[in-house]
């Protein structure tokens, strides 16, 4: 029988092909790939749609205003509140009270709110006219959006009241006070305007959490694949045909490519949805203005991809190494815990890095090889990171990646044919030293 000499490369490809093709053809993978964007999309849009729908009709307008100013300020605030998007059917009720009767009026209102007649009550007294604090109690007191709306309504009411006091025409007052400005913040970097700050943050989150999800998800896929190969004893046959290093490489790259394929498909699908968003939005009767993408330079994208790939490989190798030291799936999760903790550490640092991207903590985390792949892209998205910081962080990740692969290969070489109890740390140390 003719046989071409099979070098490590051919064997690597055989392992790679098996890992890749078997996985992307699985029903779960196809489902997750299609359902993933739908799920993420709905996580983002459904609450928005719900709040939009809820906005005009309910919460803010459905309150009692206890007006102790005796000036008609309460009525003014109620009118501002009722001017909701769709012209509310529910309206705020104004109850004029005297200062002495305020406590009992509050008690009565509280009882009514408990009975679900209203959402909350607002107290306006003469101090409020002077610009002091206004008191509100209600079921929606923790809603930042509602409180912002209330505050704006009270301010407009007071302003109108003051303008009227100096003798301005009511018509003109309405025209002057009807201001609905909102802040649209842009980020400025060395290259000039870098797009919306809010979008940058969202983008940073997206980059960080995609990588995090992929590491945890596919790290565990690799972990399970290695343990499965070991516990089903397929490894016995396979290592007689291919060296453990080649097997490890084929596995890690095969599974990584499955993850990359998924992310690429998600990007493509998102792009398609974005291009065709007009008809789609129309379908849901929504009118959302075009979302400008944050401007990112080509070099930054290259750096992002490099962080992503190196970070993923680094963790994938560690998960594979951990898989090789155990014999069954139950032990596998435990063995992988230290690795999982490293990823979680990186994610815990995302928010501090977002809030203060130039703090010592954020800088430190973007150098440490195991947190850098997640933290550095976050910092790069929200602030200006100097190129030498990016390059040295990349170098750090590359070295970390090399060390991980080295450790994993050694654990793999010794562990793949070892069965029985989980080795102690000291034994692992010996494995790593002995494997040659």
């Amino acid at each position, binding site marked *: 029988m003719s046989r071409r*000499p*099979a070098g490590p490369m051919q064997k690597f490809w055989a392992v790679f092909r098996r890992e890749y093709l078997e996985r992307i053809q699985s029903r779960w993978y196809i489902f997750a790939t299609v359902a993933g964007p739908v799920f993420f999309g709905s996580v983002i849009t459904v609450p928005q749609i719900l709040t939009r729908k809820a906005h005009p009709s309910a919460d803010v307008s459905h309150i009692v205003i206890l007006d102790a100013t005796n000036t008609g300020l309460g009525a003014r605030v109620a009118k501002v509140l009722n001017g909701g998007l769709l012209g509310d059917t529910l309206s705020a009720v104004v109850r004029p009270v005297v200062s002495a009767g305020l406590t009992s009026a509050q008690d009565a209102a509280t009882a009514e709110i408990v009975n679900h007649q209203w959402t909350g009550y607002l107290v306006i007294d003469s101090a409020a006219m002077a610009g002091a604090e206004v008191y509100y109690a209600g079921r929606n007191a923790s809603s930042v959006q509602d409180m912002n709306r209330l505050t704006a309504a009270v301010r407009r009411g007071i302003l109108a009241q003051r303008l009227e006091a100096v003798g301005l025409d009511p018509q003109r007052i309405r025209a002057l006070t009807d201001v609905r400005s909102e802040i649209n913040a842009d980020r400025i970097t060395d290259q000039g305007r870098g797009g919306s700050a809010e979008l940058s943050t969202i983008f940073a989150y997206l980059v960080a959490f995609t990588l995090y999800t992929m590491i945890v998800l596919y790290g565990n896929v690799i972990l399970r694949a290695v343990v499965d*190969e070991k516990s089903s*004893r397929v490894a016995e*046959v396979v290592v007689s*045909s*291919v060296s453990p290093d080649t097997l490890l490489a084929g596995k890690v790259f095969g599974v990584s490519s499955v993850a990359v394929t998924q992310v690429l498909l998600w990007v493509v699908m998102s792009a398609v949805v974005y291009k065709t968003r007009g008809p789609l939005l129309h379908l849901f009767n929504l009118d959302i203005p075009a979302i400008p993408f944050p401007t990112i330079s080509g070099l930054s994208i290259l750096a992002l991809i490099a962080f992503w790939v190196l970070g993923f490989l680094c963790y994938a190798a560690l998960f594979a190494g951990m898989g090789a030291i155990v014999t069954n799936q139950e032990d596998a999760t435990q063995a992988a815990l230290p690795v999982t903790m490293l990823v979680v550490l990186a994610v815990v640092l995302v928010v501090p890095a977002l809030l203060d991207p130039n703090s010592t903590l954020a800088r430190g985390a973007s150098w440490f090889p195991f947190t850098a792949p997640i933290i550095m892209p976050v910092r790069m998205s929200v602030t200006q990171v100097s190129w030498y910081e990016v390059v040295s962080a990349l170098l750090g990740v590359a070295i970390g990646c090399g060390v991980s692969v080295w450790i994993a290969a050694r654990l793999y070489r010794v562990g793949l044919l070892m069965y029985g109890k989980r080795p102690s740390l000291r034994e692992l140390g010996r494995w790593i030293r002995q494997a*040659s």
Partner: protein
Amino acid sequence: MPAALELTHVTKRFDGHVAVRDLSLTVPAGAVYGLLGPNGAGKTTTIRMLLNVIEPDEGEIRVLGTSNSTPGVIDRVGYLPEERGLYKKMQVRRVLRFLAELKGVPGKQADKRIDEWLDRFGLITPERDWGDAKVDELSRGMQQKVQFIGTLLHDPELVLLDEPFSGLDPINAQALKDTVLDLRARGRTVIFSTHLMDNAERLCDSVCIIAKGQKVLDGEVTAVRDAHSGRSVALGFLVHPPQAVVEVLRDRALVLRSDDSNRSAEVELAPGADAQELLRRLIEAGAKLERFELIRSSLHQIFLETVGANGVEPGVIGDE
């Protein structure tokens, strides 16, 4: 023709204990060779060293005429491990194709061979082509067949079977024996490790018995048996033997051990004693003999004698 396998003074240690100690053996090309020994004797370690999965601490291993670390040489070896398993969720054909690819067989050629083998092992029937099924849909017996196919698919020149009969049903065991003989007829070399002496005796041309990592004896099966034969005699009496005959059998200068039951006995000659002398003494004592036969020891007995002398715990031999 170079030897299919040559081990020269091979030693392997693990954490202070010696798994294989100074092992030398030669397997001639085209032979069926048995590596015999109780569990824990170092058979699997030896096989893993042959396959270059683990390296010996000392000594040299040559496979098919070249060092076993020569690139490509292990691709000419087929290996059936003691602990068997396949990718459960994979289609049978794909698993086999993968195993063939790892040995460097091009995909198309592999596909053709896979069909031939599946057919030969009865895995393609008019009702169902099991090649398209997933591994975990197959019965255990079928999975074992698939595993054999995986071992032989690349037409290896040297086949290593580690405890091939463990866990096999009688039908598959017979299929395996037939396959071994077929391989031999086609000039392939087969090495198998086992602790089941019956199979070894019937199939092997040569054997090597190892215990505690050391070689106890080796050689052609007939030579080994001859060397260990002639010390036992089977006796048959026409009538119940008289007391004088019993006295002869109790003479420790002549008989080391005797195992007698009514009209027959099996005796082991004492060192230095001669079978002819025993015959003469028995007849003098008035025995009416129906049978006097020098017994050739079975491998099983030789195994017990030689390995037992090396101090193996009782009970490890022959259990499944």
